[in-house]
């Protein structure tokens, strides 16, 4: 139960953070602006709205995950509240898990708000063109949730990575840079497979493959392009990728726990 208490407190603290509201505001603004951009196009207005909407949810979600995630531990240290907590009979790993869960709830709430914003704009768009709201391409509309769900899993991984960096770094700037770098690398991992397959040298090949398998592969979670073009994303793919995300998170959290356990607070 200590975990849940820490999670609840983390959530409460996070929703008081000004960064969160700034980011959420801009995300919703972007989604709303897509309505204006959609007027510039001919046909397929909803495609533009979905593209911009999903991209906004992804980008701003990642920013929320990174900036709140790195602050999780570092802020506690800066404010010296960590001594308070660790002096109580709370195992350090529970502290980490609690913090992590608290942030996940925050991100989930935000994603749901952004997703709802996207649907709202889509509905407004349909009404504006005088379409029958019950006659839209429901398949794509429902598939949007597949994309949003996988964005959430991706953000879970990103949050875990941000948390891990903040367990050993004492500077938020440094942790932010690390996490952003990991995010970018995570989206390029897929290229490694293509390169690895083509390399003639087996040593190089196994090195590249090692990185391919053990760097976070965030492209796994990216089905935005498929969803918007109505390409089917199978349930088995989604569950496999979810499993991947959970496994990756477990490793990162375990590492965070080990690092945090060994850290001295003076």
């Amino acid at each position: 139960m200590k975990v849940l208490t820490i999670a609840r407190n983390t959530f409460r603290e996070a929703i008081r953070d000004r960064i969160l509201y700034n980011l959420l505001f801009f995300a919703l603004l972007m989604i709303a602006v897509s309505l204006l951009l959609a007027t510039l196009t001919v046909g397929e207005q909803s495609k533009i709205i979905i593209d911009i909407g999903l991209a906004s949810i992804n980008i701003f979600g990642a920013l929320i995950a990174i900036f709140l995630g790195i602050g999780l531990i570092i802020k506690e240290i800066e404010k010296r509240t960590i001594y308070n907590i660790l002096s109580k009979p709370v195992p350090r790993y529970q502290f980490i898990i609690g913090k992590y869960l608290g942030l996940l709830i925050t991100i989930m709430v935000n994603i749901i708000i952004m997703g709802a914003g996207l649907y709202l704009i889509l509905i407004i768009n349909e009404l504006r063109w005088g379409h029958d709201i019950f006659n839209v391409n429901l398949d794509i509309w429902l598939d949007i949730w597949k994309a949003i769900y996988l964005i959430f899993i991706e953000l879970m991984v990103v949050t875990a990575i941000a948390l891990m960096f903040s367990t050993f770094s004492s500077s938020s700037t440094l942790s932010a840079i690390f996490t952003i770098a990991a995010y970018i690398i995570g989206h390029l991992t897929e290229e490694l497979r293509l390169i690895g397959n083509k390399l003639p040298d087996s040593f190089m090949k196994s090195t590249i493959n090692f990185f391919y398998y053990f760097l976070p592969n965030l492209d796994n979670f990216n089905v935005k392009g498929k969803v918007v073009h109505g390409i089917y994303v199978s349930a088995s793919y989604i569950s496999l990728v979810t499993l991947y995300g959970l496994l990756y998170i477990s490793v990162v959290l375990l590492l965070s726990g080990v690092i945090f356990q060994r850290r001295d607070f003076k």
Partner: protein
Amino acid sequence: MTINVKHSLVVAFPLIAALAFSIYIVQHQIAGYKGIEKKIEEFVTLPKGEYLKPAVFGYDQLVADIIWLRAIQVIGDKVVTPKGYEWVYHAMDVVTTLDPKFAYAYQFGGVTLSELGNRPDMSNMLLEKGLKENPEVWQIPFYLGFNNFFHLHNYEKAAKYMSIASELPGHPEYLPKLASRLYVQAGNPDIALEFLINMYKETDDEKVKESLEKRIKEVIIERDAIYLERGVAKYKEVYKDSPENLQDLVRMGIIKDIPPEPFGGYYYFDQSTNKVYSSVIRDRMHVYGK
């Protein structure tokens, strides 16, 4: 506390190792999925270069390189469907819009589309675009000449492009001569052969080389057939009768010997059509015959 720390490590590391192994397995599975879903068709989601340009914040060349690397891996990977070549064109179009000076992309796209994809129309579109952006690269008009000569049979245009290529810096020595010969005797298989052999030398792609090799052999057949048919005509002139077979020509001293068939078959004379054929490739490339 120290005991606790050590204890945590003992538990954590085997666990991390086990999880890492599971990640490996799962990622392997995911890659399998992507292997099925990810093919040339992935370029369907690639936006046109004009629209991608403002979105890459000035890193045009870098993004072009990434798409280029990706595209050539995919093209090299498997048999490409006719629809697939349209996406090859699209990908090359995007790459060259982002990085218009990337001359090799035009050449590669041009030769892949015409030689492997049998789409000289798209190949020419790409190469024309390349010629506009890189008027100093001799390979681009050279390939345009090749397309016009072999695929579109527009010899005049082919000769025009070849003379453009032969005036550009760095062109090979044979080029001006080839260009001038194209103007006067476009239908001669010797010219075609010379052109093809040089094209073969300019290409690094193995698949294209293979295709060119086959084409070279076909032209050799055509050249030999024309040579043998001339012999048959001479035979008729002298003996007022058709030869039974090609050996008659050698026996009567009209020709020295029958050239070897490049695919390993043999040549024969068909009295009913009055033509010489190869035992391997029955169809004649009529375009080179005068």
